[in-house]
């Protein structure tokens, strides 16, 4: 690949970086490499080389772009408000057009077909048990052989269930659903129409595919009920449908989307009170990037958790853990060194359980031997204990 190409980045956006470098320490790949090409400032400089100076796209450019986790930790750190995420998405879209054949073009398509995904997942689960795939190296969790079906309990709120999470971690959805129900609301489920939010496709530059998934998802989550999301990567993209699809309908849709913790944090008084055995568990709260840097709603996780456990913040300024959707599988070495820093921060926190509101982070951290639960799985367990205790007291 040696063609000259415009990356199709908005020139205003590309001009907005003043190269101050304040993003550098907030970039996980710069943190572990110390190399400018693996930093937001370096990547923008590289994009300018291609788009403004007419340099050819070469291997060095591809490495620079593909090494980006797209955590967007640089965005809140940027005093100039450079929209790095959208510049990277434009670049990835341009590269996807150039690459023509890419396994991701086909692979991510599966995510939109729930039955196919479930079938493949079951095959994978069997193969895993026969030890025919190197799960750790591929960054895979242990995939369940069988999963219980979720059933709707009303129509006050939607619970977005998504693709991989529904196929691999449906028990998390069940726990989230129970916690939401304990606040006295009925939960509706979208079925196979909202099979995938399109985040992975979008990050790989497959914008058309992402838009098609968005259209289907919006169709399946009709009405005006709030759409609660328990995977922060999905939530971030659902909230950006307005920009991605560019219609008034999509704008309205995005406004209905809330991270489930964000929704719960304003309804804490509706949840059952903490039990007497109170707050023995110390939980380190891992802030998923797309909750912290994109949705900027990470505080709500600690607020909800704090009602039932001792929630400890990590001292690493919310630096990415290296999971990044498909990143851990695509860039295993960088992902592992980035995770090392996170593991050190978890170690310093003294907690033995980690809460993560994003399935990708959960899988990536669990592969390093850490006990990771969804925050609401922890709450669900506490609520279970509280209810049991209440039942005991009644007796």
């Amino acid at each position, binding site marked *: 690949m040696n063609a000259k190409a415009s990356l199709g980045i908005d020139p205003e956006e590309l001009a907005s970086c003043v190269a101050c470098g304040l993003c550098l320490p907030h970039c996980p790949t710069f943190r572990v*490499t110390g*190399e*400018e*090409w693996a930093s937001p400032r370096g990547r923008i*400089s590289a994009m300018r*080389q291609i788009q403004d100076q007419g340099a050819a796209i*070469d291997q060095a450019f591809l490495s620079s772009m593909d090494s980006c986790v797209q955590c967007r930790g640089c965005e809140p750190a940027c005093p*100039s408000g450079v929209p790095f995420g959208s510049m990277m998405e434009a670049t990835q879209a341009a590269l996807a057009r150039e690459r023509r054949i890419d396994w991701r073009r086909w692979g991510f398509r599966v995510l939109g077909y729930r039955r196919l995904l479930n079938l493949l997942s079951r095959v994978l689960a069997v193969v895993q048990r026969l030890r025919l795939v190197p799960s750790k190296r591929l960054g895979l969790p242990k995939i369940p052989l069988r999963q219980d079906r979720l059933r709707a309990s009303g129509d006050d709120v939607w619970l977005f269930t998504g693709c991989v999470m529904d196929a691999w971690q449906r028990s998390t959805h069940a726990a989230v659903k129970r916690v939401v129900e304990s606040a006295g609301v009925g939960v509706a489920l979208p079925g196979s129409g909202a099979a995938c939010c399109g985040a992975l496709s979008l990050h790989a530059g497959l914008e058309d595919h992402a838009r098609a998934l968005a259209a289907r998802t919006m169709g399946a989550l009709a009405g005006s009920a709030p759409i609660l999301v328990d995977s922060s990567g999905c939530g971030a993209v659902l909230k950006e449908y307005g920009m991605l699809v560019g219609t008034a309908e999509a704008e309205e849709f995005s406004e209905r989307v809330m991270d489930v913790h964000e929704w719960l944090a304003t309804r804490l008084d509706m949840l059952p009170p903490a039990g007497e055995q109170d707050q023995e568990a110390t939980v380190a709260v891992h802030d998923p990037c797309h909750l912290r840097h994109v949705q900027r709603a990470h505080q709500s996780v600690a607020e909800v958790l704090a009602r039932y456990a001792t929630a400890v913040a990590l001292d690493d300024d919310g630096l990415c853990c290296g999971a990044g959707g498909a990143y851990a599988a695509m860039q295993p070495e960088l992902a592992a060194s980035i995770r090392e820093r996170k593991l050190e921060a978890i170690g310093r926190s003294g907690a033995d359980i980690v809460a993560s509101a994003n399935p990708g982070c959960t899988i990536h951290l669990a592969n390093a031997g850490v006990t990771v639960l969804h925050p609401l799985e922890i709450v669900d367990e506490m609520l279970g204990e509280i209810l049991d205790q209440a039942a005991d007291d009644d007796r």
Partner: protein
Amino acid sequence: MKLLKASRRDSLLRDLRRVLPPDRVRVAPLERSIMGRDASIFEGGQAGPVCFPISTEEVQGCVDAARRHGRAVVPRGAGTGLAGGAVPLEEPVVVVTTKMNRLLSVDADQAVAWVQPGMINLDLSRALAPYGLHFAPDPSSQQVCSLGGNVGTNAGGPHCLALGVTSAHVLAVEVVLMSGEAVVLGDPDGCAPGLDLRGAYVGSEGMLGITTAIAVRLTPNPPAVQTLLLAFDSVDEAAQTVSAVIADGIVPAAIEMMDKNIIWAVENFVGAGFPLDAAAVVIVEVDGLPGGVAAEADRVAELALERGGRVRRAADDHERALIWKGRKSAFGAIAQIKPNYYLHDTVVPRTRLAEVMSRVYEIVEEHDLQVMNVFHAGDGNLHPLLLYDRREPGTLERVHAAGSAIIEASLAVGGVLSGEHGIGIEKRDFMPLMFSEADLDAQARLRRAFDPDEMANPGKVLPTGASCADVNTLGKIPEGVWG
């Protein structure tokens, strides 16, 4: 001819790759062009091979290889310098120290730590928190700038008013000279006899050697701190209050000033609670033992009130942190107004602050530009920020003209060219405004004592012609560097 040049470069590369593994010597055109700039406005520098050593021995190896091939060497830390000090001219070997980022040792009793040059300033103070100690210099870029870079520029920061700049906090440096030798300058324990080579080295902008380790003096965290936010209806009242505080015999830990435009930009950006109706705010921080802190904070408040100021005292750590967040976010907040800014850095005697400030406003108006001021008022260290959009034709020329006028106005009242950013490329050609030929010749002699071949970071600080040595061809600034 071209072929010959290419093969020469290849043999330099071969030699560098004998010292470092291939993935730590980068030569792809894109990787080299990314290294062509730092945080200054100078674009178009061109790096040769980019090396990422992890030890003193590897740095020595890089220098040896460069010397054998007659190539200059440019050291680089995080690349946050604002004077172009790390911009490579004419394809030198660039030695990046970001991978040398470890804290080597801490002696809490002696209040000394050895660090590697790539360690980030703020990371050091965070690592020292358990000892109740910190590293005093805190440039606004402290979350990203490297300690090696701090040594190179003799960096300052808001809290250098009472405690002094980097030089006062560096006890010794391990340096790789351009001969390839590694030598320790200064004495981490205090006072070996001899010239203060350490002092001559700090602030030399990478032109005497490459820093490979630093012994820093650590400062105990103060038991008491009070932060005051003073708001004024005029810049003049604010400046006079600053002078009055100093004249009263108080040396606060920090005195920072921000004018109306920057207050608005910052409030938009971080919401630090700065008063939007003020023409200027002054942040004063006093620290130390509780008695002195209380007395000084009261006196500062009194002096501000007498000059028509409004006084707010930070009630707790949270409020204090918010005030400082507002101050430290200032430079970035500007981008909301114009995409580019040119940040100046001159120092004037503290008693001339009000006068020079009003001159700055005049100059900016004369050149039809916008300015924001946010600076270390207690030191008299001005930082006018000229806002512009580089895509508008003719603006950059106006920015440079206004910049020169500000420098001249500062020197006219007995000020200096730079308080903390350094000279680099930016002010190199202004040096004769402050120094005579004899003065510059003396600086060139210092340079030659360390680096007779002028191989370390050539083309910076000293204007061409300052040196009596053979004409140095490495030192020319190529066309297009003035971005």
